[in-house]
C-alpha cells in the first residue's frame, strides 16, 4: 500500500476514535493498535483463567452450602469471562491456543494479584471485595473502549464483577461482625491483600510505558494513578464501615483535594512479582500447563471423533 494511502487510513481511523465511533473487527486499524489490543485482551483473558486458581483453592473448603454454591458460580463466571475475552482476541486475528502458549512460556503476563496465595477463608472475601473491586475500577471505563468487541464484552463482565465484589464484601462483613477469631481472620487477610490490590492498577504514571498511547487510542480512559486513587477513595470508607483497619499509616483524608492521601507502594515487590518471582507465579503457570498437557488426549479424541463422524456422513 502506498504511504499516502496508509496515512489517509490512519487519519480516518483517528477521526473515528476522536468521534467516539467504535472500531470493529473488519475495519482498518494500525498494526500497533491491533497488537496493543491483542496483548491487553489476551492478558485480561489469562487473568480470568489464572484467577480461578486462588479461589478454586477454597471451593472444596467453603464453610457452608450457600458459600460453596456462590463461589462455584463466581468461578464459573470468571472462566466464562476468559472464554469470551479469548473470542474477542480472535476477532483481531490472533489464535486462542497461541496466546495461551504465550502464557505458559511466560511471554504473556496476567494480573499479578493472582500470584499471591489464598490462605484462609477470609481471602475469598478479600478477593471479591478488593480484587474484583479493583478490577471493576479498571474495567468500567473499558466499556467505552474504542474497540467494539472488547467494549461490549466488558459491559457483561462488569455486571458480573459487580456481583462478585458484593459477595466478597458480604463475606468480609460477616467475618468482621462475627466472633473475635473471625474478625482477626478478616483483618489479617486485609493486611495481606491491601497493597497487592493497589498494585493491580499497574506502575505509577511516570513509569507506565503504554498509558499515553492507549489513552490517545481511547483503549484506556484514565491513567493508572487516577484509577488507583478512585479505588482508595471508594474502598477506605467501606473498610471503616465494617470496622477493619487499612494497613497504611500514611492513609489520611485530605480535605483540600477531597481524596485520601496514601502511602508509597513497595515498587520493588511490584516489579519482582511482575517479573515472575512472586509467591505463586511458578505454581500458577504450572497448574495451567498441567491442565493443557493433561487435556491433550481429550482434544485429540474430540477431533478424531469429529473427523470420523464427518467421514461417516460423507459415506452414507
Amino acid at each position, binding site marked *: 500500500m502506498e504511504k499516502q494511502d496508509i496515512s489517509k487510513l490512519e487519519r480516518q481511523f483517528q477521526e473515528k476514535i476522536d468521534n467516539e465511533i467504535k472500531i470493529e473487527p473488519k475495519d482498518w486499524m494500525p498494526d500497533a493498535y491491533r497488537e496493543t489490543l491483542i496483548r491487553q485482551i489476551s492478558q485480561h483473558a489469562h487473568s480470568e483463567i489464572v484467577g480461578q486458581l486462588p479461589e478454586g483453592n477454597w471451593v472444596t473448603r467453603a464453610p457452608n*452450602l450457600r458459600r460453596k454454591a456462590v463461589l*462455584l458460580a463466581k468461578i464459573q463466571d470468571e472462566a466464562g469471562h476468559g472464554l469470551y475475552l479469548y473470542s474477542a482476541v480472535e476477532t483481531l486475528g490472533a489464535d486462542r491456543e497461541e496466546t495461551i502458549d504465550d502464557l505458559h512460556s511466560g511471554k504473556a503476563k496476567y494480573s499479578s494479584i493472582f500470584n499471591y496465595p489464598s490462605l484462609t477463608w477470609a481471602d475469598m472475601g478479600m478477593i471479591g471485595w478488593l480484587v474484583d473491586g479493583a478490577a471493576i475500577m479498571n474495567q468500567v471505563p473499558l466499556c467505552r473502549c474504542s474497540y467494539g468487541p472488547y467494549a461490549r464484552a466488558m459491559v457483561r463482565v462488569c455486571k458480573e464483577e459487580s456481583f462478585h465484589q458484593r459477595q466478597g464484601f458480604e463475606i468480609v462483613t460477616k467475618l468482621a461482625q462475627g466472633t473475635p477469631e473471625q474478625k482477626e481472620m478478616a483483618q489479617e487477610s486485609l493486611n495481606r491483600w491491601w497493597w497487592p490490590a493497589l498494585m493491580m492498577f499497574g506502575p505509577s504514571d511516570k513509569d507506565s510505558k503504554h498509558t499515553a498511547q492507549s489513552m490517545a487510542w481511547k483503549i484506556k480512559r484514565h491513567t493508572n494513578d487516577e484509577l488507583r486513587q478512585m479505588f482508595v477513595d471508594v474502598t477506605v470508607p467501606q473498610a471503616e464501615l465494617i470496622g477493619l483497619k487499612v494497613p497504611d499509616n500514611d492513609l489520611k483524608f485530605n480535605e483540600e483535594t477531597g481524596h485520601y492521601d496514601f502511602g508509597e507502594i513497595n515498587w520493588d515487590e511490584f516489579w519482582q512479582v511482575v517479573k515472575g518471582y512472586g509467591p505463586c507465579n511458578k505454581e500458577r503457570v504450572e497448574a495451567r500447563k498441567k491442565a493443557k498437557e493433561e487435556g491433550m488426549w*481429550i482434544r485429540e*479424541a474430540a477431533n478424531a471423533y469429529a473427523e470420523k463422524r464427518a467421514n461417516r456422513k460423507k459415506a452414507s
Partner: protein
Amino acid sequence: MTKQEALFEYLLRRADDTLILGHRLSEWCGHGPILEEDIALTNLALDLVGQATELYQYAAKVEDKGRDEDDLAFLRLEREYKNVLLVEQTNGDFGKTIVRQFLFDHFQILLYERLMESKDEQIAAIAAKSIKEVKYHLKHSSEWVIRLGDGTEESHNRVQESVTDLSRFIDELFYQDEVDELLIKEGVACDTSEFRSTYDANIKAVLDEATLSLPKEKWQLDGGRKGIHSEHLGYLLAELQYVQRTHPGMEW
C-alpha cells in the same frame, strides 16, 4: 422404623449422593482439560450442590431436631454419610470423571422421573426441578463417553479402563432395604428394581455407540447406604468440613 425415620434416611441418601459428587466435581475448578469443560464441570458441581441443599433442607425439616442443612452437610461423622460408593471415587483423569458422571446421570434421570410422581409433594417438587438439570448432565456425559470411546486409540483405552473400573459400583445404585420398602408402600419412594433393565439398556446403547463394553465379571460392591465407605471419603470430608470443624459454631 417410623415413616419419619425412613424418610429422613431416604433424603440423606439422595442428598449425600449429590453433595459428594458435586464436591468431587468442584475439585476440577480451574483445572479442567479444556476451558469449556472447566465451565461445564463447575456447572455440574453447582447444580448438584443446589440439589443437595434442597434435599438437606427438607431432611432437616423432617428430622425436626433443630439441625439445618449445613449441620447435615458438614457436621456428621464419616459413618453417617449415606452416599453410594460411586460418587466418592476420586476424579482420576477427565475420562474417569465422565464415566462416573455417566453412570450416575443415567440412574438419576430414571429415579427423578419416578420421584416426580411421589405422593410426597416436596420430593416431587425437588425431582421436577432437578430433572431439568440432570437431562443436560446426561447429554453432556453421554456425548463425552461416545467421543472418548470412539476417538483415538489412547482415549478408547483410557475410558474403557474407567468403565471397567467403575462398573463394580453400578449395582449399589439400585440398593434397597427396609427404608425403601416402607416408603414404596407409602407411595413416597419408587422401586428402583423396576427400572434396572431400562438403565442397563440405556447405558449399553451409549457404550455400544462408543465402542465400549462393560466387563463380563460380576464384581459388585456396596456399603455406602449403611455408611461403610471407601477410604477416599474420609479425606474428602476432612476438606469439606475443615472450616466448620476448626471454628465450631460460627456463622459464615
